[in-house]
């Protein structure tokens, strides 16, 4: 009862002080629970930050021995992978880059045309079928892509190019081209839709045909967004593991042409990690570091592209 303040007349300084104190006390009580949850939520939010730190720490810690044993130059430019003696991953770097770039060369035109179709051309009913289909393409597990590549694409490459084994860079490029479609389509469509309506209306009003408008006005205007989609597509292709293992043959030698078997950086890690020990195991972490450097360069490009878009 003592904290109840009754005021019958103009409050004295002491009484109003009591009121303020009571109010402060009740405010503090609310704040206490609020703070507890605030810090609980903040702690959760930092789990992601810790994870990034831990991933970086363990990758570098485990990869260091092999890197200092072989040296950066020998590791990155070395042509021979003979664990645990020679750790040269130049063939894998080349295989990863070529397969990703090949996938972009084949996949991006198709994706771009599909994005234009969805954003500008398709009747609503057709778009309502095509868009979920593209989303479905994004949801199919990479192992299923790999399986399809193995039973359809690999034999097809064998037949078309008349070679003994179809497990080649070419097969990987075709499978990856399909796998990056949903990413590039979704981002390009968003970019095309973000172009101000007035651009299109202005072009059409000047007498340009709808197609001229699409290819000469809308596409250039959406350029940075589309490039962002392409960069994400490359990142997806470089990071892909299982589908590539199943169709690329995995020979650790430098591929001489597109119809050669090859091993990507990701495949190198996935295939040998299960049994590797010592320096060999460390070299696989170093392979992971190299892979991550490529992804970081791509992400930095993406950041740069998005900055331009924001301006």
């Amino acid at each position, binding site marked *: 009862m003592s904290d109840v303040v009754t005021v019958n007349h103009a409050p004295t300084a002491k009484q109003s002080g009591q009121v303020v104190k009571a109010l402060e006390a009740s405010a503090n009580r*609310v704040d206490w*629970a*609020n703070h507890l949850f*605030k810090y*609980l*939520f*903040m702690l*959760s939010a930092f*789990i*992601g*930050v810790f*994870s990034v730190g*831990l*991933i970086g720490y*363990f*990758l570098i810690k*485990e990869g260091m021995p092999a890197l200092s044993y072989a040296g950066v130059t020998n590791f990155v430019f070395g042509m021979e992978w003979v664990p645990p003696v020679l750790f040269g991953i130049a063939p894998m770097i080349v295989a990863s880059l070529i397969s990703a770039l090949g996938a972009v060369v084949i996949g991006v*035109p*198709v*994706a*771009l*045309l*599909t994005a*234009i*179709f969805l954003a500008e*051309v398709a009747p609503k009913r057709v778009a309502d079928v*095509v868009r*979920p289909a593209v*989303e*479905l*393409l994004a*949801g*199919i*597990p*990479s*192992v299923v892509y*790999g*399986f*399809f590549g193995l*039973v*359809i694409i690999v034999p097809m490459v064998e037949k078309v190019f008349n070679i003994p084994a179809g497990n080649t860079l070419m097969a990987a490029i075709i499978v990856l081209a399909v796998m990056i479609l949903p990413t590039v389509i979704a981002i390009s469509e968003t970019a095309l839709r973000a172009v101000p309506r007035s651009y299109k209306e202005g072009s059409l009003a000047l007498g340009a*045909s*709808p*197609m*001229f408008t*699409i*290819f000469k006005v809308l596409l250039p205007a959406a350029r940075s967004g589309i490039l962002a989609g392409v960069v994400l597509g490359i990142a997806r292709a*470089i*990071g892909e*593991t*299982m589908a590539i293992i*199943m169709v690329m043959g995995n020979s650790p030698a430098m591929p001489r042409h597109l119809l050669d078997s090859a091993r990507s950086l*990701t495949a190198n*890690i*996935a295939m040998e990690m*299960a049994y590797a020990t010592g320096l060999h195991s460390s070299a696989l972490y170093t392979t*992971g570091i190299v*892979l*991550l450097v490529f*992804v970081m360069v791509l992400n930095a490009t993406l950041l740069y592209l998005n900055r331009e878009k924001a301006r």
Partner: protein
Amino acid sequence: MRRTIEDRIALSLIWGGASLTIIFLVWMLWHILANGLSYVDWTFISANYSVTDKENSGIWPMIVSTIYMVILSIAIAAPIGIMTALFLTEYAKPGSKVVKVIRFCTESLAGIPSIIYGLFGMTFFVVTLGLGFSILSGALTLTILILPVIIRTTEEALIAVPLAYREGSYGLGASKIYTIWRVILPSAMPGIITSVILSTGRVIGESAPVFLTAGMVARIPDSVLDSGRTLTVHLYKLTTELYTVHDWNQAYATATVLIVLVLAINLVTKLIGRRLNKATY
């Protein structure tokens, strides 16, 4: 005249490109379902995997492992992801340093190739924490992998809750945490459920980080500390040993089950999305 011919070529190219996308999807689905659907029966679903008796071999252990993996990783990732999203939208000052750091790290996580998660999970959860090749190691690894998806989707759902809801709640004297619990979270629920379903799809579809952390043992795991083989890892193992017609049937049937799962997940996401659009804020 010349303009119209060019226009026609351009238009047919656009239709052609879109058709190519669809043709590839239909081709892939048709080829796998046509070869696998007839082999998927109750025996295949409910029988144990057997290397010797390929005819009556099934995928029950892989289904169980996959379910364990999904439940465990979502049970860990969803609360963390939702609380992170709550912190970012309801508590943190927008544009402050803390928010920038958290956002940057979440985006970085989303960009890391899944095989790197496998490497990390193997050193950290399997070896350093001593969890061994187990469902738990796999689920913890996948937890980090799906966190960005859950955070981003939940954040979008929370931002979509109108400010008036919060103001109304505060105006009636409700505390912040009460408002979050009784007003904001219920309104954002469809979006949160969507994020959980999306991550279920991710967990089911991942393979590289799973076999590096949960192993490949093809029997029902005794506990979460036991090794298990998920459906995707199983399909990969099957493709490395395709010799007899039964091997092929098994592989096609497993791929069919995976595709049916993905179709179901897409359908449920669509249905929730439709309900979300109908909801009037």
